[in-house]
């Protein structure tokens, strides 16, 4: 068709066809989807509450749900200081809250990392946060650093070391991935793999020189445990998690645009370098806060965003809240299981998240294999 007639046709097109019905239809579709999403969020939130409530009833001493609720509401059936109330308020409630908060934090980290790396297999561990935390915690345990320090520091020493290690090692990875043009995502992945391997080696060395008791401690720490959660931890983690979470939430649209490639996002008006730097730092901080008291709870950051993406699509504006809730649910469920399967002992929670996560991940893999059209 010649240029002229095509122009004429287009002009005619524009003049005759009103855009209104389509617009109304699309508007309705979007409104419907938004409502659907809100409903999903609501259902998950209710599920989380129920699960937390159930978790409060379970344990070495089983407590009635009604009693739990009454105790939470400061009800009349329990005179203050009763044993059940103490178990609920001093042991279980902080633990359940901590699982929910850290689960949410880790899952959001995963969602953001997978987006930033444009790789569905990325997780917060990739930037060296988890391995850094584990390494420094192990260092403290093996060399028994606590004996040089004043007594009040000793109980939080491992957490402090883990927190510092997480930030230090992730900063090292960021440094390695820095080029003249900014932070290079491919380099970031490679640097992460290299540094994780290095840290793994160092961990091996530490394991070699550690005595049996310490070795056991290290192993358990790297599988995570919520035993011994207390209100101070809950408070610190809640505070530490909120700032980076808010910042990531602020950048949700820009992060969504970056899913389509950094260059593309730049052309669409996103300050890519700035947002990448800030959100990676947020991820490092979030993960550090989440693992420093409890040890490494694996698989949450990897699997949760995947499950949620099936529900909401890749858009981080809906994926972030969804992942947060689903992560909280996954870890709370895992910790509850970890507590009750071999009463009075406990399983490491990381084992349970893996046990719940791996089958699902394999299922996703099989789905993908079915859909794959090339080698």
């Amino acid at each position, binding site marked *: 068709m010649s240029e002229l007639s*095509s122009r004429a046709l*287009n002009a005619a097109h524009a003049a005759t066809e009103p855009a209104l019905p389509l617009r109304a239809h*699309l508007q309705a579709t979007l409104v419907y989807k938004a409502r659907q999403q809100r409903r999903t969020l609501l259902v998950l939130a209710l599920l989380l509450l129920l699960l937390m409530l159930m978790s409060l009833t379970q344990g070495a001493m089983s407590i009635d749900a009604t009693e739990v609720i009454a105790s939470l509401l400061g009800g009349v059936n329990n005179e203050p200081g009763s044993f059940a109330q103490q178990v609920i308020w001093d042991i279980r409630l902080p633990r359940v809250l901590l699982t929910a908060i850290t689960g949410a934090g880790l899952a959001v980290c995963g969602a953001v990392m997978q987006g930033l790396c444009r*790789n569905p297999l990325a997780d917060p561990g990739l930037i060296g946060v988890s391995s850094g935390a584990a390494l420094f915690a192990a260092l403290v345990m093996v060399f028994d650093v606590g004996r040089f320090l004043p007594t009040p520091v000793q109980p939080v020493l491992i957490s402090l070391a883990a927190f510092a290690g997480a930030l230090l090692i992730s900063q090292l990875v960021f440094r390695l991935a820095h080029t003249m043009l900014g932070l290079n995502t491919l380099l970031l992945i490679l640097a992460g793999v290299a540094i994780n391997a290095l840290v793994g080696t160092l961990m091996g060395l530490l394991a070699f020189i550690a005595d049996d008791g310490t070795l056991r401690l290290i192993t358990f720490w790297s599988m995570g445990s919520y035993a011994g959660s207390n209100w101070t931890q809950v408070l610190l983690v809640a505070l530490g998690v909120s700032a980076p979470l808010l910042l990531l939430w602020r950048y949700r649209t*820009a992060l969504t645009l970056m899913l*389509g*490639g950094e260059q593309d996002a730049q052309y*669409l008006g996103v300050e890519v370098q700035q947002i990448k730097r800030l959100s990676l730092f947020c991820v490092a901080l979030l993960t550090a806060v989440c693992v420093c008291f409890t040890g490494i709870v694996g698989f949450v950051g990897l699997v949760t965003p995947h499950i949620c993406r099936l529900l909401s699509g890749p858009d981080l504006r809906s994926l972030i809240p969804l992942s947060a809730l689903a992560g909280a649910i996954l870890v709370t469920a895992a910790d509850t299981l970890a507590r009750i399967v071999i009463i009075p002992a406990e399983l490491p929670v990381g084992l349970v998240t893996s046990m719940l996560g791996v089958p699902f991940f394999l299922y996703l893999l099989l789905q993908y294999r079915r859909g794959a059209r090339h080698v």
Partner: protein
Amino acid sequence: MFKLSQVSVGCGDRARLRDVSLTIRQGSLTAVLGANGAGKSSLLSLLAGELQAAAGEVLFKQQPLAQWSSQQLATQRAFMLQQQRPVFDFLVLDYLLLARHAWLESQAQSLAYASELIQRLALQPLLEKPITRLSGGEWQRVQFARAWLQLVSPEGVGHAMLLLDEPTAALDIYQQRQFYQALQSFVAAGGTALVVLHDVNQAARVADQFILLQQGQLLAAGDAEHCFTQTNLCRCYQVAGQLQHDEQSGRRYFHF
């Protein structure tokens, strides 16, 4: 739209563009031609604000390009990349709407522009598909629609510049024709477009302005009459060929 005066990119032996001066007028459809390595993509990256000029000045709307913020620039120029599809399966409608990010407007407003364009480009059947499941031609159409949508202002696209890098390299001739019709309708709507092309005859069919590059230098720039000539094309591509005129359409055809 753009005014380049004595622009160089890179320096010394590794200069990718040398001493290029040219103007791109509003409402034109310019084809950038040249052999491989002549600096076509560098010119495009330069105009997109991605490459910095080592010497000379790049003015976009009378203002140095470097002074534009990326958010401002995103409302004025779009770049249709020859890019891989994202691994994440956005639905086409959601993917299109992302283009309005820089405008800081309500969703209803974005949707109004989007639905008009969707109708114009007949994209309705694709809207609910994930972008990972589109065919090559469909993906190209969606990319184009998104680039266009990125530029729509209340006054249309008269203010805007669309940059395209080999947009039809992977398309069959039917889809190529469809694509260029869409591109021409963008220009007919007042937009300015600059497209890097390998196929000189395709360029002759669609473009009204030409930029010929040779080893990083400007060989010629202007309309078909002055620029799309046998001497220029033979020099530009280092081939012996003949320029023919098609009586019916009045178009030029380079036979080599």
